[in-house]
């Protein structure tokens, strides 16, 4: 029995199964907070905890799935290319919007962290929370944060973005597809982009673009803002 768990098959099968259950629940209820990704994560963590299977065992298969994340980021160039006309027409708005968003992200993290009296090392770890993991980890190290806390905050932010984006855009009347896409990509990187892609091709393309641009902008501005505000 135990040997079966040690193969990549276990992690892959349980992931697909949990995601299918998530999709089923989401389609039945249409309730936006029942995000298939969120449900799958909760189900799997619950399953592993109940049956006392450690994360490492799950990850034999989990790593196979994660392997697709990098090529999936590369392929975001395709929807972006399909929306070339919009990009040519609105690149100024896009750049300004992402710069504003990334600046607000860093400032709001610093302000709230001070408000909640969070330790300095944790505060610094949270600064890169809106950007894509590989860049976020590097920035965290550079600022003096704890990379593992950064990874956790980035994943939490991504899931929150994917779950909340459609609801927030609806309530607060953000209806411009380009604005929705850039907002999602800037606030919640590639995990949020999964939701943007489901909302439409323009939203997805713009969100994908914002992953790269916001990472670059944040790397450039975060050290300066931290120096001024801390």
């Amino acid at each position, binding site marked *: 029995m135990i040997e079966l768990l040690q193969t990549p098959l276990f992690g892959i099968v349980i992931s697909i199964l949990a995601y299918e259950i998530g999709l089923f629940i989401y389609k039945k209820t249409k309730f936006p907070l029942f995000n298939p990704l969120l449900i799958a994560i909760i189900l799997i963590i619950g399953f592993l905890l109940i049956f006392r299977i450690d994360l490492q065992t799950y990850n034999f298969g989990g790593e196979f799935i994660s392997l697709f994340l990098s090529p999936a980021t590369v*392929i*975001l160039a395709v929807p972006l290319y399909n929306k070339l006309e919009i990009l040519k027409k609105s690149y100024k708005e896009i750049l300004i919007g992402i710069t504003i968003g990334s600046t607000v992200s860093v400032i709001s993290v610093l302000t709230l962290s001070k408000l909640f009296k969070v330790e300095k090392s944790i505060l610094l770890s949270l600064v890169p929370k809106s950007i894509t993991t590989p860049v976020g980890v590097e920035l965290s190290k550079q600022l003096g944060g704890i990379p*593992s806390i950064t990874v956790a905050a980035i994943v939490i932010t991504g899931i929150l973005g994917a779950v909340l984006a459609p609801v927030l855009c609806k309530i607060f009347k953000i209806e411009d597809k380009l604005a929705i896409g850039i907002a999602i990509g800037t606030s919640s990187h590639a995990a949020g*982009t999964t939701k943007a892609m489901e909302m439409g091709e323009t939203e997805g393309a713009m969100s994908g673009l914002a992953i790269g641009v916001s990472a670059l902008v944040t790397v450039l501005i975060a050290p300066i803002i931290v120096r001024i505000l801390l």
Partner: protein
Amino acid sequence: MKLLRQFGFILGLTLFGELIKKVFKLPLPGSVIGMIVLFLLLYLKVVKVENLKEISSFLLDHLSFFFVPAGVGLMAYMGILRDNWFEIGIISLITTVIVLLITGYSIQLLRKRWNK
């Protein structure tokens, strides 16, 4: 073979992105550099978008699923998060909402002003 060939091409680009990152010590992940390179290849018509149809729909349709293990990976941080989970959770929630709304509004406003 179509899908496999396309996937091989995309994986090659991903690897190329990693290489560029290492060689030039760029502050962007290899995957984002790969995305820029692919965009340029499409823009310069070196690669036709039709020739990537199968792989792009496969990867994009399952984008959300690929994040499952990363989310499950949060388990590993339960220890570190235990003392600060409330602060980290609430700060992540509030800032994500603020950034999403402010970015969205700024662009929506600018586009309305400039496109008139």
